[in-house]
């Protein structure tokens, strides 16, 4: 799939949204029912519960071509399975802090609670996240600048090694 719009040359982000079947997925359906309009940058992956979302999926998505990941579930207290989103919340709080500590732009991995009736919130979230990622540009833009590498890196042995490091950094997280 071409990353840039053929006509405008504009960057089209690739954002994956994990949505729980009972709340957010229903909210997204409702947005459709209400014919709300939102950018096509976000694709929804249905899971039974936000507690099913393994952080490993998130990192895999971000490392294999997605520019952003959204994890959505029922509001705490409203989980269809009572507790799934509470676990998800703790996991994602820790995992998000960890990937940000390791240098991911915070906007690229977000978590939101959206209920089955909050079609508007679903639309607004998609619009907001899509705009944020458009502003950040593709994942490659997360790579550190030469100045950042120089500030942090130990003695790099050779120009080639330096190039390698820079190239490696250019790869998606």
């Amino acid at each position, binding site marked *: 799939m071409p990353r840039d719009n053929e006509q405008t040359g504009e960057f089209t982000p690739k954002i994956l949204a994990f949505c729980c079947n009972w709340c957010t997925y229903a909210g997204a359906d409702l947005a459709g029912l209400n014919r709300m309009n939102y950018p096509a940058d976000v694709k929804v992956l249905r899971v039974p519960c936000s507690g099913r979302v393994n952080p490993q999926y998130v990192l895999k998505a971000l490392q294999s071509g997605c520019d952003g990941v959204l994890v959505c579930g029922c509001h705490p207290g409203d989980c269809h399975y009572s507790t799934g989103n509470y676990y998800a919340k703790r996991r994602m709080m*820790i995992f998000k802090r*960890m990937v940000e500590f390791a240098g991911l*732009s915070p906007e690229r991995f977000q978590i939101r*609670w959206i209920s089955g009736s909050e079609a508007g919130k679903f639309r607004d979230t998609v619009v907001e996240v899509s705009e944020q990622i458009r502003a950040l540009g593709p994942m490659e833009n997360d790579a550190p600048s030469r100045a950042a590498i120089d500030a942090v890196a130990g003695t790099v042995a050779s120009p080639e090694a330096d190039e390698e490091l820079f190239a*490696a950094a250019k790869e998606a997280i």
Partner: protein
Amino acid sequence: MADVQDTIRERAAALLSSGEVSAVIGWGAGRFDDVRFPLVVKRAEDAGKLVFDASCVQMTAKRLLEHTGEGKVALVARGCESRAVNRFIADHQLTRDQVYVIGVPCPGMVDPATGETLKRCAECQVRNPVVHDELVGDPVPEPKPYRFAEVDRVEAMSREERRAFFDEMYGKCIRCYACRNACPCCTCRECFVEQDKVGWQGKAFNVNEARYYGMIRAFHTGDRCIECGECERACPMGLPLMVIMHQQVRDIDKLFGPYEGGGLTDSGPDPLRTYKTDDIEEFM
């Protein structure tokens, strides 16, 4: 420490000859004076091969799990090994009656490469065994040194610098999995990296794959880490692996604390296996 070593040998011989234990796990002497290695002694006459001095850098507890089928096993345990024992028990990998803990208060080990205190000992929070059947030697003071200096340093960096820091770290990783194999929290029968069919972990050697391995392993152990620092010690490439463990430890402590790592007390489920309905909310 010579007295301690003598006592360890005596006790090991006694425990083995009485049949109370089938093996004693401690350290043996390598070819060079500053090289010690994890040694499993199974006969009383070999007890003399056990050594204990400032070069016993390895955290040996993981070996326990390989010998539990063979009767009770004795472990010469410092603070770190004793916390690992508690970790194993919390993870249902061991029962307390399967292990005889010969506790040894630990003054800290010496890094043979630098001659200075081993990094994991310089950050150690628990030098005295938290669990033991007998204690060899007198308890040592617990200085509880500040262990988040490296986290502070990295946290103070800009996002790009942090990314550069971790790219360098993971760029050097050779994915030998020594960190995993040494870790007392890594007790899976089949690690996610070995599950080719599901395809969590790619086989290629590059910074992306190393990052995937490094970060997911860190996340898998983050809420249970006993902060022994053995992963970092075992790393043949000298990567600062504890920085991401300490970062999680500090976050968990702040958010869902106090952090125990399961290695200190029997304090209920680990932080990511439980929740509170009034946990702080930041995802509305």
